[in-house]
């Protein structure tokens, strides 16, 4: 069965990570799982891309006008942590329903719980595997 992917059918994912190797990796994992990917190197850049700057809420279309269907972010980042980014997204009336996935290299239960309580969709352990990302991708369409 062949599927023809139209622009609108392919989920657009924003991937946020301060580590350049991890950014390249998560981008490839997502592209291999049939997603369109935009990467950001920190929380501030991510918020700018999403059209959220400080307390100003602009529309949910970014500069390119392409909607983001999911945000996947590292937890440990300098400046703004993944948790703080998650918080800002959940506080936004236009973005609060966009699923946010947190990635972390450390399996700390309190961290995981705090993220899930703040509304993260999933908490994933790094390094990410292709099987994990494919499962995530599948969840996006169901």
């Amino acid at each position, binding site marked *: 069965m062949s599927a023809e992917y139209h622009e609108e059918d392919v989920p657009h994912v924003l991937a946020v990570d301060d580590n*350049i*190797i991890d950014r*390249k*990796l998560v981008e*490839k994992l997502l592209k*291999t799982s049939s997603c369109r990917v935009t990467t950001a190197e920190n929380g501030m850049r991510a918020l700018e891309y999403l059209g959220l700057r400080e307390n100003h809420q602009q529309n949910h279309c970014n500069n390119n006008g392409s909607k983001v269907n999911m945000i996947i972010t590292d937890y*440990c980042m300098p400046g703004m942590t993944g948790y703080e980014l998650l918080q800002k997204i959940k506080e936004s009336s236009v973005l609060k329903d966009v699923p946010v996935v947190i990635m972390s*290299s450390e399996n700390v239960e309190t961290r995981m719980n705090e993220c899930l309580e703040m509304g993260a969709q999933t908490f994933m352990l790094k*390094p990410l*595997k292709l099987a994990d990302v494919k499962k995530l991708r599948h969840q996006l369409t169901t």
Partner: protein
Amino acid sequence: MAAVSQLQRQFIEYTSSLYNEGYLDDQFTQLQKLQDESNPDFVVEVVSLFFEDSEKLLNNLATALQQKIVDYKQVDSHVHQFKGSSSSIGAQRVTNVCVHFRNCCEEKNLDGCLRCLQQVKHEYILVRNKLEALFRLEQQILQAGGSIPMME
């Protein structure tokens, strides 16, 4: 064709030894799985990024540990980066030293940190040499007209 199959055998033996000796772990296999026709140099690209990033981190670590008053939070932050990137490419022995290194940072143990720095540099150079040798082998196979064996 004898040359190709000999090179391929060498490749398989060398790769297996890297896993058996703990230089590489399953995460490296994950990287190879992501390589395809649309991105035939993916592994080399990621690993090259790792080399560049690591060399920067090693310099930053050396500088941070040379300060009159060592900022252990800063040192730990560099080690955390190193741990993350080495883990992402499957450089297991480097990651393991980083774990120990972070403990020394937490304890503000300068001697421990200096020893870890030497150790992590050593492990990094080892894995870098081995990966470069692996990539050279791959090139030899391709240039001889063969294909890279898939490792399961």
